[in-house]
């Protein structure tokens, strides 16, 4: 059965980058901010307010959930870790597929025209 993720799509840039940053591993809030900055070469920076506003929405929708705390020395007790849910992973996949179509179309139309 093919699930319909259209109610969730398209993702906002902030949500897309948050999901992308969580695709590899569970991260805490500051880790998500750093990962987003790394993935975009510092071109897209999330502030804490934007991050947690989006995280709140994504968690309410069941796309992201809080993960069990990673036990490590010196870990600040205020840190909370977040992970993609199965639904979140599927939605991210659907969004990436949608963007692939967009990029394919864009490349096709932006290809330099041959002189006739």
């Amino acid at each position, binding site marked *: 059965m093919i699930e319909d993720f259209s109610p969730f799509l398209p993702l906002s840039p902030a949500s897309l980058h948050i999901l992308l940053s969580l695709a590899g591993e569970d991260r805490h809030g500051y880790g998500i901010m750093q990962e987003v900055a790394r993935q975009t070469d510092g071109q897209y920076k999330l502030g*804490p*307010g934007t991050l947690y*506003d989006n995280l*709140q929405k994504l968690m*309410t929708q069941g796309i992201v959930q*809080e993960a069990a705390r990673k036990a490590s020395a010196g870990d600040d007790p205020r840190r909370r870790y977040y992970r993609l849910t199965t639904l979140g992973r599927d939605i991210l996949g659907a969004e990436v597929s949608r963007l692939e179509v967009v990029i394919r179309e864009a490349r096709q139309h932006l290809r330099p025209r041959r002189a006739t």
Partner: protein
Amino acid sequence: MTRLLYQWLLWLHPPFFRREFAGEMLWIFDSSVAAEGAPALLFDGVASLARQWLLRSGSWKIAAALAGGLVQITLGGFGMMIFGHRQSVQFLVTAPYAGVWSGSLRSPAGSTPVELALGRNRGEWLGSLVVDGPDGRAQSDLLDIRVRRDLVTFRIATPAGDTHFHGRLNGETLSGDFESSGDVGSGRWELARASPSAVPRGAAVATGIDNLVAITICLVACIILAVVLLSLWTRSFTHQRIHSVR
């Protein structure tokens, strides 16, 4: 100092958001202030504050509706206090009618000097009409006084029958028609304000009461507004629940 300011910004967030994320946001501030710079983080905090209250929290609708209503009442009350003795503002009370008016009744039979006293007490209009006729002065209480914007109607009862008055306030003059079921007939009456302060007994404090009512309403409105905003501040109206693993 900037940390304190950021902490204060976080405290101003809606309770639900504050409880969930304020600790983490402060931790991020502590961790990233050196790299990101305090101004950027403070700006983000202000933007987040506006976003959470204006877009995410439903409580702003309730607060805006209540505040709008209370502001109207408050402005109306202050307007009454400032312009209460002018006919331009008749929001809560119609005090411009209060006072003593003198003039004449004109009918085909001739002109008769009269003096009208009008006032309000506890919201009720009362007054008297003194007619200086050929048989001497006769005083009648005004009955069924109705005041609506710049229009006033009342009647007086005499042994000869009732006389109905319809008049209009125009600045410092009060004029209109009268019609009697008795032998007085009908005609016009024209009065000018003689004294705004010499209002009839029992109604002398009418204007004072009006102002007192206006001030009381203003104060009550301000207190209610403060209580509502305070309760919104401390309670979360959102029913969102994050399904998270603690």
